[in-house]
């Protein structure tokens, strides 16, 4: 409906590396509006929750539009 959340654990050396891995992953999937919602780094790696927004408020939502206007079939 609005965003894709991805939460996982990365083996990495610090929080920054973990954040970059998550942002890289989301961008690699083709998402442009990406962020890190949460990160917790402890010794062996980082627990990261990443977010890719599909729609922001006031965008045109495909799930509301008819198919011939670019909406879902």
């Amino acid at each position, binding site marked *: 409906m609005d965003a894709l959340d991805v939460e996982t654990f990365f*083996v990495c050396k610090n929080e920054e590396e973990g954040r*970059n891995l998550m942002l890289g992953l989301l961008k690699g999937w083709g998402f442009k509006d990406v962020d890190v919602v949460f990160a917790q780094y402890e*010794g*062996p790696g980082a*627990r990261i929750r990443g977010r890719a927004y599909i729609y922001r408020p006031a965008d045109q939502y495909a799930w509301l539009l008819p198919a011939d206007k670019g909406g879902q079939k």
Partner: protein
Amino acid sequence: MKTVLLAPLDPVHDIGLKMIARGLEQAGHKIILLQPDLSAEEIIEQILSSHVDTLLLSRTLGYGVGEVLARFVDMADAAGVRDRIKIGIGGMAIRQELAAELGFDAGFGPGTTTEEVICFVEGRQYKPDPTRSNKSKPDLTAGYNYSYLNPAIAAKLETISSFILDWVKDKWSPGVERAKLREQWDVSRWRNREGNGVLFEHYPGFCSEIPQKFYETGELHPKTRRFTKQEVEGLERYLEETKARMSVLKLQHTRKRPYVFNQYGTGCPFMDIGHILASEAWGADGVVHFDPSWGARTEGFLDGFLTHQEDGTVITPANLNRIHMGLEKSTLWQIRAHRGLNTPETVVLAGKIGADLTKINFCYGSLAAGTDPERMVVDAYHSMLYAKEYRLPFDVVTNEELAGVPAHKAFAGMLIVSDLAIRLGARPILQPLFAYSPEVMIHELMNDNYIDFNAAKIYALRSIINAPIWPGAPIGFLTQTEDRVQSAMTTALHAALAASLGVDAISIASTDEAYSGGPISVPAKIDTLRAVQESFRFLGEAHITPTDMAVTYSQQITEGIEQVLNQVCKTGDIVEALHRGLLGSREEGAYPGRAGKGTIEKR
């Protein structure tokens, strides 16, 4: 002393900024805390007029944060202050990436500690609080004298232990023979790569087909393989790098107990080590080794550094040794021996390799884990002697409840095993289930809440014996679903109940507890550790108050235990009692096992 200007870029004050201001003041710095809702121009004017060393901005609101901050940086540049002072930005809306992108000297997101900001102001490198790693390995049995508070039950247990001891004293099994051979095995020489001595001259003769074939032809179990040299070198590099930056959280907040255990046993010792490191880092005090189910029905262990394609990590000296090398010094390590044909040798291996705890229960092993009762009692007896020798306390698990055995019968079995252990000089730990068990479902004992019946179990055990209690395994069994939020929540609530009841330890599930599609993942382990940490923080020294039903249930459990022990006393034979269903009947879901049947010898 530095002069620090703190300014909220919001219409209201950020509580975090006030806390940082207080921390800086206590650290001896001069602070100037500006009011909220000032413009960038007004903040920059204040910088110019106050000889500020550091500016700390905060921004809580997320909308437009990029534009607001970019504008501020541009104005600071234009006013000539950007190169003269350090500027940090913090708050709920701040991400390190954003701060760096906009040219700030530091970005402090959610979860920032005051110490981190003080380090930034003072130009020091931040090092996390070293006390986080200051955990020590506890003895779960310390402070317990195993005295009985219920004389009637104590007398019955004494009778039962006497006839068990009398029956078992001249009995042997292939499992006992292998344990004897393993006891003569020199672990130091083996660790020095000086071989296994004479161990394998006789060992294969006491094994069943798979290990025997392995020792004769080198053929491994079809689901296992050896690691390659490159893989081992990779593991060593990974461990070296990770250990250098390792720290461990403490979960308990203001209480000392319960200590928190979780399990590992993906099948692969490498993956296990990774899982254990993550569990330790997120606060697990102990970890429990899970071996494959076929391991319990196979006479003898394989040898070598082996990975297994299915659930459960194969017990071999090399596998256990590698896992042991990866453990933090404070981590309690349990190797389960309770249910199968390798029980005594497992205890010997656990003791020699360096485990802290094991698990033994011949009632569960023979009624719900498939091992012949006669074999299980003999092997458990010898296991207890080894547990004493290697100073391994062990929990007496009551998972036969999950098959449908009522709590009072499972507890009667647990007390029989524990009493025997105490008489042999070992140190048992009672392990009642905190579970939504079949008995509970059928008799609607938890229709209102999950508290009363679990509390009743602890009340009942405490009214009988002064012994450590470690609910498991895991707590909240059968209350967890595949939904990770629900699963972490129910585990955390059961953990809070355990803390409130003052038990010594708990075993917790991951949020994958109800998922059966594959091995448990690291995020699923961290989910529940975080949730349990929050439940302990929530509870503190406060208590959960059960309803009056807890006392009623407790009395019923205690009376039930006494009746079962009476019946066992009348048989005068523990093996017969197990076969007759006195400690769990076929109708209740307990079936005396067949693995190892006919293998007991009288000597």
